[in-house]
């Protein structure tokens, strides 16, 4: 892999002062224990990468440090002295802790200038003069984006990556002692990302400490001086630069390198599962001006959708479920007939089911488990508008047994379930509609290993039943261990298609970075 010359200068190496020391932090949201026992240390002048699977508690941990949440337990030391837990982001910022959060947080209606300086002034006193604000904002943005940005433009008129740039600049302008970047590069283009790394290493040289959360191995290896790995709410290891391999990281993150219970099926098994084409995309463009793609999804196969974050995987799934492709056609093949998939409703009618990524987008907060379970299949479960609750109940029980969903009473609010079980409900409720093609958007995101196993087992089962499963995942091993073939996306194009034989972590990673096939 490539490593730029943004290496850490010598003087910073011999143990510099500790900026942050978090010990035995814990934080729970209702039944879900987001962080259970996390300890973390940040030294002056280092970039400390924080890695772990989705939902392993990284974000929560940094939110504890940046005053968004108050910890249930644990102590935070800032610059050597014990601090009473930081109650608000403001408090944290005054203490020199500045965070760029995972969400792209902007005030859409306000100008770029207002956005980057938001919260610096008090309500009555200007901490920074107007002219100075403009000058510094312009410089910072230019340095990051490599081109000037109209300071008076409303942020809602900017592209996503420009917005994220605003968030980053907002943090930089506060002259942080401790800079936290929580997946802050997810929607930046590569050049901007490199410029950001340049800025970060400049800051660290001047004694700033940076905490860096990312999913991209290459980024870690590029600027990470130390790495702390988190798994299901705990910090499991802290490794110094060079003393780790991707493989090992993955093992640490997942807790095992054998993900699926069963030994991986051989090609033969896969071949016989595979049926005729169930769903196909013809001349599909995910963005204007990109290379069109033709994809065929067969019945009974497990197709992985992979790529670096924000390279078009989500757009691809959306297209498949009939929601907004730029151009091209999605066709569902049912019993010899070709049915165009126009809208999500149409797609559903043709047996294409989609499970979104965000649980916030799938669950109905206060409603009961049973109601949540029954939602997508309302029409199926009702005769002339009348709900036949028995059907729903029976099916729910069936899936509870099949997926080992742990729940008290199906009448309880869905919010009483743990993340994994919520996800199981979210998926199983679509299975209840007996879809022929199942589109899953990173379903194992933020659920514990046990739950993952169950899901994998389920998905294989589904494939064996002759359903086509298309699954977007941000985890390499899921692809390697589970998929029959993997579609790797890059810059919103189908970059490569790895079939069962040629499927390996290295192959994937190299494909992610657009390296030609065999090497890496």
């Amino acid at each position, binding site marked *: 892999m490539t490593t730029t010359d943004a290496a850490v200068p010598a003087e910073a190496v011999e143990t510099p002062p500790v900026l942050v020391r978090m010990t035995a932090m814990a934080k729970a949201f209702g039944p879900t224990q987001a962080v259970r026992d996390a300890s973390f240390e940040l030294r002056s002048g280092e970039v400390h990468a924080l890695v772990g699977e989705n939902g392993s508690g990284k974000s929560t941990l940094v939110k504890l440090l940046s005053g968004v949440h108050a910890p249930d337990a644990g102590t935070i030391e800032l610059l050597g002295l014990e601090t009473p837990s930081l109650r608000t*982001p*403001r408090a944290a910022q005054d203490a020199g802790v500045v965070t760029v959060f995972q969400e792209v947080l902007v*005030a859409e209606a306000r100008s770029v200038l207002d956005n980057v300086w938001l919260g610096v002034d008090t309500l009555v006193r*200007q901490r920074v003069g107007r002219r100075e604000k403009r000058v510094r904002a312009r410089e910072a943005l230019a340095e990051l984006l490599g081109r000037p940005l109209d300071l008076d433009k409303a942020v809602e008129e900017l592209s996503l990556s420009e917005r994220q740039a605003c968030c980053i600049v907002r943090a930089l302008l506060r002259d942080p002692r401790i800079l936290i970047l929580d997946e802050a590069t997810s929607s930046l283009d590569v050049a901007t990302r490199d410029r950001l790394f340049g800025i970060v290493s400049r800051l660290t040289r001047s004694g700033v400490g940076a905490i860096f959360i990312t999913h991209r191995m290459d980024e870690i290896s590029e600027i990470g001086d130390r790495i702390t790995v988190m798994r299901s709410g705990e910090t499991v290891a802290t490794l110094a630069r060079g003393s780790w391999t991707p493989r090992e990281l993955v093992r640490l993150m997942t807790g095992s390198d054998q993900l699926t219970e069963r030994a991986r099926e051989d090609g033969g098994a896969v071949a016989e599962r595979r049926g005729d084409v169930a769903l196909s995309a013809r001349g599909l463009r995910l963005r204007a001006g990109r290379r069109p793609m033709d994809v065929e999804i067969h019945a009974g196969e497990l197709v992985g959708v992979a790529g670096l974050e924000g390279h078009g995987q989500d757009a691809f799934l959306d297209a498949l479920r009939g929601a907004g492709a730029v151009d091209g056609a999605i066709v569902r093949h049912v019993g010899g007939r070709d049915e165009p998939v126009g809208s999500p409703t149409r797609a559903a009618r043709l047996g294409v089911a989609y499970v979104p990524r965000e649980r916030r987008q799938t669950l109905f907060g206060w409603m009961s488990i049973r109601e949540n379970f029954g939602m997508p299949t309302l029409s199926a479960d009702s005769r002339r508008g009348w709900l036949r609750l028995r059907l729903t109940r029976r099916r729910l029980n069936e899936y509870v047994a099949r997926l080992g969903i742990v729940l008290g009473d199906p009448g309880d609010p869905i919010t009483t379930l743990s993340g994994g079980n919520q996800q199981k409900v979210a998926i199983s409720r679509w299975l209840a509609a007996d879809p022929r093609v199942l589109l899953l958007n990173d379903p194992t995101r933020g659920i514990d290993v046990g739950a993952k196993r169950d899901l994998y087992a389920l998905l294989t089962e589904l494939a064996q039943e002759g359903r086509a499963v298309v699954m977007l995942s941000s985890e390499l091993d899921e692809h390697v261990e589970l998929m029959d073939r993997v579609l790797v996306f890059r810059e919103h194009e189908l970059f490569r298609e790895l079939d069962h034989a040629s499927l390996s972590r290295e192959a994937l990673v190299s494909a992610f970075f657009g390296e030609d096939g065999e090497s890496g």
Partner: protein
Amino acid sequence: MSTGAVATESPARPASSARAGYAVTLGLRLLNRYSFAFALLLTVALLATTIVRDPDPWSNGFWVGLLQNMAPMALAAMASTPAIISGGGGFDLSISPLMYFLAEVFIVWLAPHSLGGFASVPIVLGLGAAIGAFNGLLIILLRVPPVVATLAVFFVLIGVDLRMLANPNEGGYLSPSNWVVHLADKVGPIPGGVFTLGFPLLVWFLLGLLPYRRTLYAVGSNDATAFASGVNVALVRVVAYSLGGLFAGVASLALVAISLSANPSLSQSYTLLAIAAVALGGTSLWGGRGGLFGSLLGAASIYLLGNLLLTLQVDPSYLQVMYGGMLLVAVVLGGVAARARQAE
């Protein structure tokens, strides 16, 4: 309510094919930049017609009357605005009863105790601001929809108004010699309305010099962002509500100036008018957009329309329909503009 377009593709922007289409997009641009554009257009048109129809529009009386008469409604609208801008469904239903409450305080309590002089100004405004702040706190601490919380205060205040003046024939009046009357007439050569209407605008302008106003809009636009960036969102909102109360204080003075009397039985008469004026003025009830000036224009156009219908002797029955129509057009335009924005 933003059940937005998850699956449904966002509605088409005005077809910019024809020249007309271009005009439309241009209009929407304008509306995005200046949310009060529509209200301004309306006001100018109505005002122009009024002036044309009026025997001598350049006499002082014309403007004095105009300003004094629309002052209470306009001020009520302006008082409702900061809370709405502060977002989070921000809303203050209690403005109208608050106006009447403060008017009563002035007439029933202050004036008789020889506080009817200029001393009354800080007292009335202060009291208004305090009650506004109370609303804000209620909403922040109970974390309930502002409409509901302020509805409760709405009822309580109406009750208090009626209670305070159990016998409207005793002490419900203010002597015409009181200084307030000038607010409904002239102060030297200047129409009194200029002062009452000018005050909130001035305050608003001065707030513009402080970081507060920008922060308020940011909070209204996206409170999570503001919070994450270290803004004390709760404080910003409470201040917004107390600003509303402050302006309600001014409104009460304008009201007293015209009526020279406390009329508890009318406590809620400005509630719906204010809402309509604000919406007409292009202030988005989602927060973060719009401003005091828009509300002023909104109120102006409502008032002028009523006035014009009288001058033109249009059947008053049509008034309601026109108000409603105007309102719908205004908010729909706002919605379309917002869509155009998102599409960009």
